[in-house]
């Protein structure tokens, strides 16, 4: 009886020490990184796919820390270089372009990973506001 009791006490003590408090590390959402040169891989106007019908191939938009610049302009949300911002760097819903000499233009942002590659999808109206364009951008090599 004493042996059994002793066994149980020892088991209890071991049990207490076996449990270690788990320190929970709150995962933090990484800041979205757009730095680099991006090209248009898909373009639609009012839902019509124009990707192969109009030459978007030379267009590039370069993002650095806070600035952007455009090469080989095509109809775009802005037509001059300037500064860009996310509404929230961790959970961006909007991407804003502020050309140096005019008002900022903002687009709703989709930022999916497709086939392992990050895409940026922006929606804007370069001409009449009733004409809606959607560009899918991908990092250019």
């Amino acid at each position, binding site marked *: 009886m004493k042996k059994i009791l002793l066994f149980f006490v020892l088991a209890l003590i071991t049990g207490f020490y076996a449990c270690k408090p788990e320190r929970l590390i709150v995962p933090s959402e990484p800041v979205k990184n757009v730095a680099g040169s991006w090209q248009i891989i898909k373009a639609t106007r009012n839902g019509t796919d124009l990707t192969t019908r109009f030459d978007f191939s030379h267009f590039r938009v370069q993002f650095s820390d806070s600035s952007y610049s455009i090469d080989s302009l095509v109809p775009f949300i802005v037509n001059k270089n300037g500064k860009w911002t996310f509404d929230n760097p961790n959970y961006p819903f909007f991407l804003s372009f502020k050309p140096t000499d005019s008002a900022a233009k903002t687009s709703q942002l989709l930022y999916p990973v497709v086939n392992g590659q990050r895409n940026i999808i922006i929606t804007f109206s370069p001409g009449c506001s*009733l004409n809606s364009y959607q560009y899918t951008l991908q990092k250019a090599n």
Partner: protein
Amino acid sequence: MKHKLFKKDRSTIWKIVGGLILLIIVSCQMTIDSIVQPASVNGGDILSVTLNVKIISNQDQTSRFMVAVLVPKVWKASQPQNTTITFVSDITTGPQPMTLIPTGTAAPNGNGLDWPTYLNNKIGNGGNRLSDYEWVAFYSNSAYTVNSSSNFGATVSIQMKTSPDNLLFKLGYCIANSSDGLSSSDRYGAYLAPTNSCFQVIGTGDLIDFCNPQLSTIDPRNSLDNDIITVNFDGGVASTDLDNAAQVYLCATGITTTGDILPVCVQTDKTKMTSLGLNRWQKDIWPRSLFNLNANQHLARLEYYFTDASGNKKVGYGNGSGPFTYTFKCQ
């Protein structure tokens, strides 16, 4: 024993058949018997249309009445100040008001589609050849009860403010109810313009022709010089000098808001059109780039022709010597 079973089977069979018959003949039939609509109005005037409607029901039903119109988008018929629809009927007293069905409201039996989309899918474009038309749908403010063996008429009054635009359009109308939707052809009524008829608004500006096949159209119909516009040439519409052209080119002149005349009439890659087959050609252009505009220049309009590779064979508006025209403007 056998005798008893046989009797039981027979009565069950009749119950099933009877039930099926009942299902088949239960209906709320809605038809547009006739319409009263002028052949034309002046731009900006109110278009008045009357629909004479018959409703035959053999089931008890309480629903709202639905009336929809097929109209050009430029009329902005969904704005309350532009359209008024009321009706009188044998089972109501006085004009009954109707209100635009709020955007996004799912139509009954429409698999989640809203009424304009549902109408477009089920009834179609009414023969309109340009894409900027729309179905605009209204519900009666009240719901009405019809009982089995109802047979009555209604007269719908539609007042729509037209825009100042010069246009030819194929108008259309649909009546239905808020319980059945467009679930089967005996539960709604539709009236579409007959083949050779076309409603005309005598207005101002370039004619917007929804009715007749066009030698050339530009899409979107409303755009500015910073949009990408699609220039279409449909050589299948009429026999032209370009009938057997191996290659068609765009020959265009941009006219700026300050009166600068900017011709781009060369037969190069810049103006080379893409063949869609059957004598149809297409070119997507960015006017600001094609006409090399500086930051202060804006295009007011385009005048253009289609040519062959030599530039000598030229097709203009109505297959004539004058150019096609396109005005840069938003709605």
